[in-house]
């Protein structure tokens, strides 16, 4: 990897106190994102991917306890004061969430939200901010942008709202964009358009991106690198091609196999993963996936596997019983 590392997550752990005990949402995660590259974080609900993004953005709930380091552009985000962090937020670090209805303020017009963000973070006046807002809306593919400035979020469709959220996120030219399930709430045809838009904007601005999703299909087509999370840990990390062609984690393979494919014949029984993800307030001693894993051995239940590099460079996995290289894509 010749591109410089923009974001480095080092040994981050997030703990949440709950009435049922301590909840370890993120369990010692290491990640890197280089400038201009897209990292996909994939996992099911409860795997910790959202908490991880909140940890990076320092948007965790007040009771959460955070450990580790998050180095962004040389600075440790976890040690920054709130005003320095605020300055960093729009200018260098932006985020797009899943539900644009809740991430946009429903009682402010689109124009107000865009212009406010621009004026707060860039030193420009109202007229310039307004002109820029119109240009931004046009860039993200919103027709008739001048009219949109006057509209409220509820007057727009879901896809449009997400474009607006994206425009606001991109308004101050961030170096890193974190997209947390940006298309999960959208129809598949709109989803394709939004993902295209994200890819285009990323290329144009040479922006780094973290794409968080549960959809392996999105990850396959839109990311350079993938980190698979399960029960708060990264269990496999590799360049996208390598992950799908030579996956090592039984979980990744099982997840891929469990997705219905369009080229499979109807009524073929799906190889489902039995059981359920573990209760995060009662972590297991050994590998979190072992109760559901086909290849689980005695060692898997006693010891927790650590992320270690495979023979191929940059392919890391955490398993005592990894798949053989010939496994690859399952039908």
């Amino acid at each position, binding site marked *: 990897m010749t591109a410089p590392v923009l974001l480095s997550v080092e040994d981050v752990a997030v703990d949440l106190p709950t009435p049922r005990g301590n909840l370890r949402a993120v369990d010692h995660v290491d990640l890197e994102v280089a400038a201009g590259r897209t990292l996909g974080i994939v996992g*099911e609900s409860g795997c910790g991917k959202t908490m991880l993004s909140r940890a990076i953005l320092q948007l965790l709930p007040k009771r959460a306890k955070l450990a580790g380091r998050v180095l962004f552009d040389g600075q440790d985000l976890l040690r920054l004061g709130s005003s320095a962090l605020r300055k960093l937020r729009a200018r260098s670090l932006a985020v797009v969430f899943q539900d644009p209805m809740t991430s946009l303020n429903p009682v402010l017009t689109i124009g107000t939200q865009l212009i406010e963000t621009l004026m707060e973070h860039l030193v420009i006046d109202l007229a310039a901010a307004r002109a820029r807002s119109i240009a931004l809306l046009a860039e993200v593919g919103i027709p008739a942008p001048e009219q949109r400035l006057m509209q409220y979020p509820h007057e727009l469709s879901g896809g449009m709202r997400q474009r607006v959220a994206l425009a606001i996120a991109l308004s101050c030219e961030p170096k890193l964009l974190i997209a947390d399930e940006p298309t999960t709430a959208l129809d598949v*045809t709109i989803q394709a358009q939004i993902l295209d838009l994200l890819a285009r904007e990323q290329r144009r601005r040479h922006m780094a991106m973290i794409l968080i999703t549960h959809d392996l*299909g*999105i990850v396959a087509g839109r990311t350079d690198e993938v980190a698979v999370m399960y029960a708060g840990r990264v269990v496999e990390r590799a360049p996208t091609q390598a992950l799908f062609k030579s996956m090592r984690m039984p979980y990744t393979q099982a997840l891929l196999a469990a997705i*219905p*494919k369009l080229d*499979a014949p109807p009524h073929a029984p*799906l190889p489902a993963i039995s059981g359920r993800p573990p209760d995060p307030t009662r972590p297991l001693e050994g590998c979190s996936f072992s109760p559901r894993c086909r290849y689980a051995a005695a060692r898997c239940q006693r010891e927790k596997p650590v992320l270690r590099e495979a023979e191929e460079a940059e392919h890391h996995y955490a398993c005592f019983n990894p798949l053989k290289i010939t496994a690859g894509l399952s039908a």
Partner: protein
Amino acid sequence: MMHGVAQALPRDPLLKVENLVVEYAVGAKTIHAVSDVSLEIARGETLGLVGESGCGKSTLGRAILQLRPADSGRVVFDGCELTALRGEALRKMRRRIQLIFQDPIASLNPRRQIGDIVAEPLAIAGHRDDKKRQALVEEMLGAVGLDPAIVTGRLPHEFSGGQCQRISIARALVLNPEFIVCDEPVSALDVSIRAQILNLLEEMKARFGLTLLFIAHDLAVVKAVSDRVAVMYLGRFCEVGPSEQLFANPAHPYTALLIEAIPVPDPDVRPAERVRVGEPPSPIAPPSGCRFRTRCVRADKRCSEEVPELREIAPNRHVACHHPLM
């Protein structure tokens, strides 16, 4: 008048829907949710109904079950016209047709115990024998993969989405219905749980000889469980045909668009760089003629003037398009 109906088998379909129209008013405007839809489902068949949000598929499902009044059209179940039934007669028919919902936790009463919830259909149907009721409930819970001893005394909020869906399925099956409408039953579930529930549905279908209408927006999920598939857009059917054929060779441009838009979990398959096809129009003012024409690259003048009817272009393949792909 029923031309262009997607025919299942030449005789004795279990469910027949004829020219169903459902519209509802929102303020001064009217939403044309379902516009003149006709279909047939044979006994033992699974018909998949696929479309994006706002296409009316859920409304169609509810209208078939008479949970939502239709403005015109008929629904005939096993020879009996459901749309003409009222009161007690309709309630009795309901025992033969059931519904499974998208949100598994919301479909269970948060203040009632699971045993109670699954026994409710039996209580409504008038089964007085407590012991037999209990036995049936336990059998059903076991059939869906839950241990009755652990489950019956608890409340829904103690369970995960997947487990709640299993309970929902048990409740739907306890009266041994013939027909079940599954309204997005796995959309709210995790990927790894989806496969479990889909397998369960197939198993239950085989075991109890069910006929299913499976509604979803995910094409691959629909294909996995359906014999035939109907594609819906803005209140109308675009095409209907056997699953395998329909997805291998789509006849309607919308089906082709849907298939192309699906992200495939294979890094060698580049996502198609789509021509801008814009947003779906609103169901309040659907386009004249063919409703898909505003997003269709093949649209011409005829498409804006004439509503395409569902017609048979190949054995068992029906499409509503003036310029089909095959």
